[in-house]
């Protein structure tokens, strides 16, 4: 316990943006300014997810309540052509009874998460993406991505892990800023590399998003969204966990 207390940093709470009046556009602005921990919640410091973020800033171990369970379905994907089948498999296994709008939303999010991981995680030395989205891709065994899903009591926990570890907070900030400023217009011009439109779609449609980067090793993007009851657009969180180099 003594060791734990020594690790606690008084400034940890100030690193978290907590507000009951944030919308996603404003959150995107904050991310582009370098804020890595954002919680839109009326519960303030009492929100369970805020408490986890606060404790993780100190000891980096606690899982968020929505991501605590082991995945019920886990699929490794190497071929871009396998994506649709993998996603369909998850939908049929865990969400077959859900209404069409829920399944469509889950399909879109899984599609964007997995294609982002396949096409934008592995980069050349110059920093450019090794694979292009305009063509099919066959990842090497060591580059295979993993798509995980867990059906919670009232929601879906999805995560995708890649073996790139190249995602930076600044990349996310730029992408979201561009998307919210233009609502997609100039995203269309970027045909070659990651334009960020897919990430924007994920950000717009999930309640919780957590990104963990081990620089040059791996990136895991985890999200949670409700599948029963209406989603509350004023309640969401974004957390980016990465090494020093990842956030610069």
């Amino acid at each position, binding site marked *: 316990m003594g060791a734990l207390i020594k690790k606690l940093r008084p400034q940890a709470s100030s690193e978290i943006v907590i507000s009951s009046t944030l919308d996603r556009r404003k959150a995107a602005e904050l991310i582009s300014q370098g804020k890595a921990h954002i919680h839109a919640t009326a519960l303030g410091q009492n929100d369970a997810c805020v408490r986890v973020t606060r404790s993780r800033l100190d000891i980096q171990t606690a899982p968020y309540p929505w991501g605590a369970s082991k995945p019920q379905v886990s699929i490794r994907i190497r071929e871009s052509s396998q994506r649709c089948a993998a996603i369909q498999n998850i939908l049929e296994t865990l969400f077959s009874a859900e209404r069409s709008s829920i399944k469509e*939303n889950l399909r879109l999010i899984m599609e964007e998460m997995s294609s982002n991981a396949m096409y934008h995680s592995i980069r050349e030395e110059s920093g450019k993406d090794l694979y292009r989205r*305009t063509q099919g891709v066959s990842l090497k065994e060591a580059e295979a991505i993993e798509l995980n899903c867990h059906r919670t009591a009232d929601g879906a926990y999805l995560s995708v892990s890649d073996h790139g570890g190249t995602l930076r907070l600044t990349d996310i900030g730029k992408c979201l800023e561009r998307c919210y400023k233009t609502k997609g217009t100039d995203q*269309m011009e970027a045909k070659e590399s990651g334009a960020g*439109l897919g990430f924007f779609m994920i950000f717009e449609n999930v309640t919780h998003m957590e990104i963990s980067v081990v620089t040059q090793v791996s990136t895991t993007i985890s999200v949670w969204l409700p599948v029963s009851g209406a989603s509350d657009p004023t309640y969401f969180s974004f957390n980016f966990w990465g090494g020093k180099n990842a956030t610069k």
Partner: protein
Amino acid sequence: MLPNDKFKFEQMLREQKKVIMLSGMIDEDTTFDEIMKLGSPLIFNFKGITAINSCGVRNWVNFLKAFGENNAAFEECPPTVVKQMNMIPSFTAGAKIASVYVPYVCDNCDAETMALIDVSKFSKGKFSVKETIPCEACKEGEMELDGHPAQYFSFIK
């Protein structure tokens, strides 16, 4: 038909107007070159579209820009297309939106249906849509609109 089995289109004539029936998934493999050759104006019927990803959105927006948004009209847009219209305004740009499908779910038997709504006379903040309709499946429950009307019709300009 395009050389891509995930996406197809067919051309029809309705009152001397060309209607393009789109079907399947719009993604990175989808090209609209063959449709471009058909000339304009065109009515795009989205009823058969099952999914669109971000690359598909990009392809569509680039196509629409080259085709001329003022020469395009959209009809029978299913929820998956309406979602993109709401998220990415350039998906429709200045195209005329004639009709969209609105999803309903029964509170009694969970049956789902979609109602085709003429939105050509809707304007921003001025639209009316039934929030409930009788369930034809169980004949007992009421079907509720699956979503918030203001959010669902936020593409209206």
